[in-house]
């Protein structure tokens, strides 16, 4: 069963399937042609040797007719002993050929050694086949009515068989010798032609998720061209669908800004006449602000997904300090201590604008969800240097008072806010960070341990 499974798994490759199919066809064709050649050879050899048998019989018949015209049959009867040459064969195949001369009544006149007597093997005119002691013989019988005698000439089958096999083997040897080379050539050609499909696969695998540019035509074959055209057409349609979807999000968020501005401004005009009204207006303003934040974040998310990233060298340490500086007062107002551990320089190649967005969302997140009167730590460490660029790890660490309510597996999901629904926020910030990190090939990790939340960016 395991072998079958293994074969099945190997045969998932189209390349292997073609190689196996072509090899099987080649071997089957070679085998069939060998069988056909063998029977063709057998037929031709039989034709040739049958003609030779007839020829021998005619020569013997002619010679004996002359001899019997000059002497009596009795004088011929005295010759068999002379013809028995069993002592030493002149050729190894000599005993595979035989003849017999007999009278019309079946009396033996002359024969080669070992041939059955007329009583054991009766005369048959023309071609016949028979077995003697397990050996198979071909025979040709001819009667001479004028001189009252009959001639039988015979050939053992192995005499013909050896020739048949020799000829068949000689035909098969080149096929068998060439077979490995043909199989290797077949494999090489299949690999060569499939190489362009592999290149298409590599192109697609190595692409950034937001890259919808068409793949270049890799060769002039119809098959690869058809696949590339189909993929390019699909990429184009996917891009259009994404652009439409994101443009809709961006347009919708954009269009909501004016009515939201109107709503907020109208609410700010209200002058409550008592405490209950004041509370209601404050709640309405708070909800409006949340709606504004949500729309704003949706717009940021739509833009983050739409924007073509501009990669350039910059000092991530300086950019981190700038973001921290702009948030410092907000942290103070929220009763949080912001502690920074950032080196002087950290040269990276990435999109600075995208990093600003990631940092502001991470700091915003810490600001909203960190436990009051606690410390938020931002650490940037340089890791392995690659060429003239620094590897880095950026960690934002903050304390929370509700770790049990946070589902660490869902923090990067859109609109995930845990059970902290009474706190401001849209639940999109971390999703925006994760989205940008993916675009920038930065790995992001979220850890939650002992009331400590850690977001790590590694690159």
């Amino acid at each position, binding site marked *: 069963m395991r072998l079958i499974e293994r074969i099945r798994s190997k045969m998932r490759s189209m390349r292997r399937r073609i190689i196996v199919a072509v090899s099987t066809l080649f071997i089957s064709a070679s085998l069939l042609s060998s069988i056909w050649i063998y029977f063709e050879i057998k037929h031709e050899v039989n034709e040739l040797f049958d003609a030779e048998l007839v020829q021998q019989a005619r020569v013997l018949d002619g010679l004996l007719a002359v001899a019997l015209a000059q002497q009596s049959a009795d004088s011929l009867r005295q010759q068999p002993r002379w013809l028995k040459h069993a002592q030493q064969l002149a050729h190894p195949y000599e005993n595979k050929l035989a003849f017999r001369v007999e009278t019309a009544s079946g009396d033996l006149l002359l024969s080669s050694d070992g041939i059955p007597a007329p009583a054991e093997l009766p005369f048959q005119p023309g071609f016949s086949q028979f077995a003697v002691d397990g050996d198979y013989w071909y025979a040709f019988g001819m009667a001479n009515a004028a001189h009252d005698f009959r001639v039988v000439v015979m050939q053992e089958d192995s005499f013909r068989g050896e020739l048949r096999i020799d000829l068949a083997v000689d035909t098969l040897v080149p096929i068998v010798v060439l077979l490995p080379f043909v199989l290797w050539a077949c494999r090489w050609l299949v690999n060569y032609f499939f190489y362009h499909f592999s290149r298409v696969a590599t192109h697609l695998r190595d692409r950034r998720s937001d890259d919808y540019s068409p793949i270049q035509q890799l060769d002039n074959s119809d098959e690869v061209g058809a696949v590339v055209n189909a993929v390019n057409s699909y990429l184009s349609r996917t891009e259009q669908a994404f652009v439409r979807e994101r443009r809709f999000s961006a347009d919708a968020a954009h269009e909501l*800004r004016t009515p939201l*501005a109107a709503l907020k401004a109208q609410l700010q005009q209200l002058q409550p006449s008592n405490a209950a009204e004041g509370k209601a207006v404050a709640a309405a303003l708070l909800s409006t602000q949340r709606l504004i934040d949500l729309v704003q974040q949706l717009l940021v998310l739509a833009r983050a997904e739409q924007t073509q990233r501009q990669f350039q060298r910059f000092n991530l340490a300086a950019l981190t300090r700038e973001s921290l500086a702009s948030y410092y007062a907000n942290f103070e107002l929220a009763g949080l201590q912001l502690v920074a551990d950032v080196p002087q320089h950290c040269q990276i190649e990435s999109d600075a604008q995208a990093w600003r967005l990631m940092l502001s969302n991470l700091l915003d997140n810490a600001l909203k969800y960190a436990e009051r009167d606690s410390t938020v730590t931002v650490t940037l460490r340089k890791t392995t240097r690659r060429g003239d660029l620094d590897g880095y790890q950026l960690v934002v660490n903050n304390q929370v008072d509700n770790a049990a309510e946070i589902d660490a597996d869902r923090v990067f999901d859109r609109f995930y806010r845990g059970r902290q629904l009474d706190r401001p926020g849209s639940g999109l910030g971390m999703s925006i960070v994760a989205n940008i990190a993916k675009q920038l090939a930065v790995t992001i990790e979220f850890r939650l341990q002992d009331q400590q939340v850690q977001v790590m960016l590694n690159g």
Partner: protein
Amino acid sequence: MDVLLVEDDKWLGQAIEIGLTERDFQITWVRSGAAAIGELQRQEYQLLILDLGLPDIDGQRVLQSVRRKQLALPVMILTARDETDQVVQALDSGADDYVTKPFDLNELAARLRALYRRRGGHASAEIQVGSLRLNVNSHEVWVADDPVRLSRREFDLLQLLVSQQRRVFSREQLERQLHHDETPLESNALEVHIHNLRKKLKHKDWIETIRGIGYRFSCD
């Protein structure tokens, strides 16, 4: 202060009109670009609040028309378009400030007042923070009426820090302020200038070091 408000949205226009009137602005509200151009030809205003997405003429074209005719009128752009290139385009076309929707009415009013002060020529050349006084034209500095002599770079640094009290500036933001000419900066130039400033101002606690980030000014 006479303000022309150009906003096509009925509810937003109404809310701004009421809100700013309550904050001592005289508001004339129109809802189209053509009406705005007509109104500006008919009457003189001290400020213009202009929405960019107008139904008839684009706000940018209204702005260009204003700039062709009345160069001195301060213009505040009020729009839902907030992408950098749109902000840059509006400012390059002659806008003085830019507020994106949704906004806070108090912030809008404060920005309008600041804009009027700046463009009206009433902005003071002197900045006073506690006992510290700076004259941005003469580059003179006084602490409790005692003159303090500062180098040009020290003055620039102090002016930036004082311009937004309690705001933290990263060391790179401050270094950029020092690096306005081509003279290269030493690696510890910022620390040296901060040290000198603290010494000369005789109030070491005014410039606070925010560890790992930068500095800020406060003299509460």
